[in-house]
């Protein structure tokens, strides 16, 4: 692990984050957008762990905040999917551009 410079890991997580943003921007399916958001949170977690590993902050801090992020991601997924199910029950669609009742 010592062999990999910090910047490589940061660039890797940057790419992962960018892929997540791309997915969140272009997906039509709401579940697809949620999946992309999970990817973005994951990239942020990798960054937290890398910083806590490489720099002389308290080594536990990064991991603990990663745990918090994972918990938040779980709640986001649960609430988001509940909204998707409620939407599907009412409108029979999960595509964002078909839910345009308030758009003009």
């Amino acid at each position, binding site marked *: *692990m*010592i*062999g*990999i410079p*910090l*910047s*490589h*890991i940061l*660039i*890797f997580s*940057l*790419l*992962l984050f*960018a*892929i997540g*943003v*791309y*997915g969140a921007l*272009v*997906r*039509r*399916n709401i*579940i*697809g957008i949620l*999946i*992309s958001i*999970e*990817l973005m949170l*994951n990239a942020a*977690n990798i960054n937290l*762990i890398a910083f806590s590993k*490489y*720099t*002389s*902050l*308290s*080594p*536990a*801090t990064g*991991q*603990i905040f*990663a*745990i918090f992020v*994972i*918990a*938040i*991601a*779980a*709640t986001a*997924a*649960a*609430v988001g*999917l*509940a909204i*998707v*199910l*409620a939407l599907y*029950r009412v409108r029979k669609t999960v*595509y*964002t551009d078909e839910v345009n009742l308030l758009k003009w």
Partner: protein
Amino acid sequence: MPILEMAAKFGTYAVMAVILIFALGVVTLRNIFHCALCLAAALIGTAVLYVAFRAEYLAAIQILLYVGAVVTLIIFAIMLTEHLAGKTVRQNNSQSPLAIAGLLGFVALLTVVILKTPWPVTQTALKAKVSVMALGEALMGTYVFPFEVISIILIAALIGTVVIAKKDAPEERL
């Protein structure tokens, strides 16, 4: 043993590459079920990366919560909203070129920033090892307030999810 260290280094790079490939799969595949499976693979790859970072506890939590719970939830939602043998519909909207252009600029900018910044990497930090005990003590000591807030958020999300997802008509309760 330098050879094993070299192998570990290249193994880590390989894991990173695999994660990126699966992440691309998540945002480009047309079948949403395949996307969810790609997400699971990317998350498991991230757990492997955490093991390489000597954060085994977090790796286990990652698999338990993300792969065991979040991906399962997502697949559950997919099963409830997709048709079993439905025709493949267009999954992306028309913003794709714009998004790619903007994100390329974003990535280029941040890459320059990352490479220019002198990161305070210290050798003592690289050698440090976090035990599960230390994590638990930090969670119950220094970070006890955020911990409690997270618990409240989880409870609120639990109740909110039930309220949102349950059927409206009261006589149709399970």
